[in-house]
């Protein structure tokens, strides 16, 4: 029994090390960090909105022409004030972060 428990504990520890180390090595820009912290929940890592959350909320595909055809000011306004089911981030994010976020959204189609 003790052996099983030790192997179980070791397994958890190994998994955490495996998972944490690559993420640490994966350097992120400021914009990517802001995107990860605020947008991934619905819009997915790649902006597609293909996660279960994104599908359920019918989150926009940030790579789509519909989104990319908006001006930077329009995108910044949506982030700041929210729209539909999307909450407003103006109270949390600084204008500078929102500007970086818009630039990051512009880069998403190129990453696919």
């Amino acid at each position: 029994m003790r052996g099983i428990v030790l192997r179980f504990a070791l397994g958890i520890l190994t998994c955490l090390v495996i998972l944490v180390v690559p993420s640490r090595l994966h350097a992120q820009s400021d914009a990517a960090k802001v995107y990860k912290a605020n947008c991934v929940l619905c819009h997915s890592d790649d902006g597609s909105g293909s996660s279960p959350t994104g599908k359920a909320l019918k989150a926009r595909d940030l790579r789509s022409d519909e989104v990319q055809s908006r001006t930077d000011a329009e995108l910044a306004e949506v982030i700041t004030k929210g729209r539909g089911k999307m909450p407003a981030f103006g109270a949390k994010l600084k204008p500078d972060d929102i500007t970086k976020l818009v630039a990051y959204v512009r880069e998403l189609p190129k990453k696919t």
Partner: protein
Amino acid sequence: MLRTECGYSLGRIFLKLFAILPLVVLAGPCAYAVPSYSRQTGLSCASCHYAPPELNAFGRKFKLEGYTFATKPEVSEDEKDHNSGLRLLEAFPLSVLFDTSFTSTKSPQPTTQNGNFEFPQAASLFLAGSWGNHVGSFLQVTYDSQADHFTWDNTDIRYANNSGHLFGKPLTFGTTFNNNPTVEDLWNSTPAWGYPFVSNNVAPSPSAAAIINGSLAQDVAGLGGYTMWNDHLYVAGTLYRSEHIGGTQPNPGTGFGFNIRGVAPYWRLAWQTSTQNNNLEIGTYGMHLKSSPGAITGPEDGYTDWAADFQYDRMLPQLKNDVLSFRGTYIRENSSLVASFGNGAAAVVGHHLNTAQANVEYHFGTRLSGAVGYFNVTGTADPLLFAQAPVSGSANGSPASNGYLLNLSWWPQQNIDLAVQYTGYLRFNGAGTNYDGAGRNAGANNSTYLLVRFVF
């Protein structure tokens, strides 16, 4: 009668244990939509719940990511050079819950009054929200009117990080520090957050319950890890030790039915998939523990629970996005009660217990939900473990019980729940008629329960 080193009768301990177990098990989940999450995210309760505490895809993700997602102002400073960052909610994440209820059983329990008001049945305080970058909590303390005191309730404090990648796919991982096996889980098909979502604490309830089905709730402390890969594969594991609320430290074990020897591993594996209107989860979970009843040394009882579960939520666009949910779980418990047998609390060493639960629920928007559930418990008969006693006992020593649960909840506002629930028993502690040997039938324990709940 055999006694422990400290002079406690193990038979009495077991009787106490089995008197308390049903209350723990059928008390149901003690947690809800928590308004401080709403204040933190700027989103309504319905953003995370079909009906509290049932999580939708967004709610699962919010929990997976450590309860940290926020859109409201924070006191923050970025990490720079060798300086740490800071991220604190400006609004302290505190919430309140107030339950008041009425319960009536088909036949009164001997020498007691039937038709019971509880005002309150329970009142809870929650510290629920982001504690900082990557760290958040669901933490609850509850006042129970029958015990007349506050006590620690479900708690899940977690670190989460969504920046991982594995095989080119996104990976979220974290750690959880909690006090109830399955409380960390994301679905409503496992015990801690399973149906029924509200329940009375007055009517008699069946004696037998698997250890993972609530028997250890708030009586253990566990540290574990979890990960979700590519929004599909969820893997979690936790190691638990006994942590008896109200007990002395160091733990002498006396007076407590379960004293975990070493550590008790809990495991969870689930796979989910989704389309725009469908969410499906199938999974397995379980636990293994060795315990010395009423002691921390000597012979051990061993339990291993193997369980499977599923949840399917179907959104119906043609019906204004109403949601139909199907959930179920099966738990197989194998136990080797060496200590209990040696102490005269069990007639045989080898036992098994099968628990099957299934329910279907229709959500009329976020205003109304109606659910039907069925449960069935069977297992090894044991006249000592399931001893004869009026109302709570079994005349034939069988743990077998089955019945149904009907629930209708109305939410005039998303933070006010008016519920009516009916529990019907076809078999109770081994029989449909005269199950306790004192002339009481299973149907006598059928109960009607009315609840008014406020959370704010």
